[in-house]
């Protein structure tokens, strides 16, 4: 008898409502160790909320979230810290600490002396295509795209086995975006991390993903390997990847 390996991340029937708004309505999703899953979906469908639920930042209403087989909901104290140690997170808005210089942001959770931590920060800056001269600046002194890359450097700095990227290439020029896509792909292929990426950027999807899942109406309505994305006959997915205004997904206020 063979059994499938324990998924690194497993969501079953996860629901979450804010007031009268049912944002997640029964999410079922599994991510295998070393896999890169990209989540696509319209704005406001709850993609960021889903990542925060997995991190234990937002409590879920019902269902189960397991990371390496361990239920996230009841975690407290040291166990919760251990859970979060395993996950790096790039927030959609960067979420850099604006009272601290760049290098202290990147090395915030790293151990060691100040000199070691600064060296590690500069190392990670290089990986996202930024020079050491940025290290002593405050986040407010950086452009939006640079802030995003510093936030990315912070997410990968501790070399966690799982990393969440919430729109890693939004607001970047195409060349920098390609550098970031390469970086994420390298992390998955060479360092065997498990990556969960949210993006609207189809070039990014094609570069990063092993598998793609689409979130719509609070549920995962389609998932499959990257290769099956283009041949997929799901009308929602087709509309999303072709970026068409015509289709089953209607924007409130938009009319034909």
């Amino acid at each position: 008898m063979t059994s499938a390996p324990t998924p690194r991340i497993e969501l079953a029937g996860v629901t979450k409502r804010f007031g009268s708004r049912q944002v997640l309505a029964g999410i079922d999703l599994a991510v295998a160790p070393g896999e890169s899953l990209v989540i696509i979906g319209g704005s406001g469908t709850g993609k960021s909320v889903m990542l925060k639920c997995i991190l234990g930042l937002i409590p879920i209403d019902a269902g189960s979230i397991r990371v390496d087989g361990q239920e996230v909901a009841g975690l407290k104290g040291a166990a919760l810290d251990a859970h979060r140690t395993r996950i790096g997170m790039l927030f959609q808005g960067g979420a850099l600490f604006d009272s601290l210089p760049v290098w202290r942001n990147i090395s915030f959770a790293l151990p060691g002396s100040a000199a070691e931590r600064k060296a590690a920060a500069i190392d990670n800056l290089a990986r996202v295509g930024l020079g050491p001269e940025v290290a002593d600046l405050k986040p407010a002194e950086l452009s939006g795209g640079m802030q995003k890359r510093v936030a990315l450097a912070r997410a990968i700095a501790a070399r966690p086995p799982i990393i969440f990227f919430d729109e890693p290439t939004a607001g970047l020029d195409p060349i920098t975006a390609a550098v970031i896509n390469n970086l994420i792909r390298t992390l998955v292929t060479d360092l065997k991390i498990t990556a969960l990426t949210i993006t609207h950027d189809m070039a990014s999807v094609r570069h990063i993903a092993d598998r793609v899942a689409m979130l719509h109406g609070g549920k995962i309505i389609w998932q499959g390997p990257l290769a099956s994305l283009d041949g997929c006959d799901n009308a929602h997915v087709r509309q999303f990847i072709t970026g068409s205004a015509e289709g089953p997904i209607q924007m409130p206020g938009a009319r034909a």
Partner: protein
Amino acid sequence: MIGVLVAIGVPVLAALASIGRLTRFAIRALTRMAQPPWYPAQVAQQMLSIGWLSLPVVGLTAIFTGSALAQQIFIGGSRFNAASTVPAVTVIGVVRELGPVLGGLMVAGRVASAMAAELGTMRVTEQIDALVTLRTDPFRWLVGPRILAAVLVMPFLVLVSNALGVMGGWLLATQRLGFNSAQYLATTARYLEWDDVISSLVKAAVFGFFIALMGCYHGYHSGGGAAGVGKATTNAVVSSFILILLSNLIITVIVFGS
């Protein structure tokens, strides 16, 4: 009838709920502060920004108010041939009430608002979420150092406020009202009691606690966007004003009322 009950009940319940939430927040802050990890550098930085940078505004307020107080006591006292009470009443009024209360209100205006704006911005830009994912407790990293720094620094600010308030009275009395400087100071010293000074410092520490608590509480629970942060800032200032005035009354009644 039911309409009346609902009209009264809803705001009362809402008030009770927010008192409960605030109490939970305060207890959480205090218990987390008692356990490591501690961040002394954060405390030092807050002491600097609360204490040192509040000195000018607290000092000016004290001088102006002490002078005005001396002038009014002189006018009022003259009606009863009691103009000589100016130094005694000024020192009692300043040390027992005006020094701590006005110092507290000025610091609240500066500091509670700044804390609420900073923590509120950190909340809406997900910096607090980021702290948590980097395994740093916002109560130990943000809230605790602010409360500790405010409680430690406020007594010093109020000492300065008291001294400058008395000095303001002395300046006006000697320069405008014709008091003899040495006599004025001697009377001041005779009427200055240790109990007054101690109650003044206790008030200061209590006010410091409420200022930082309100700044942090409203900032931490700030709603979305710039409007949410603005509302948090206003609420922090208004609620810390009310708590300062209320706790001042309670302490005054307990210490001096019997």
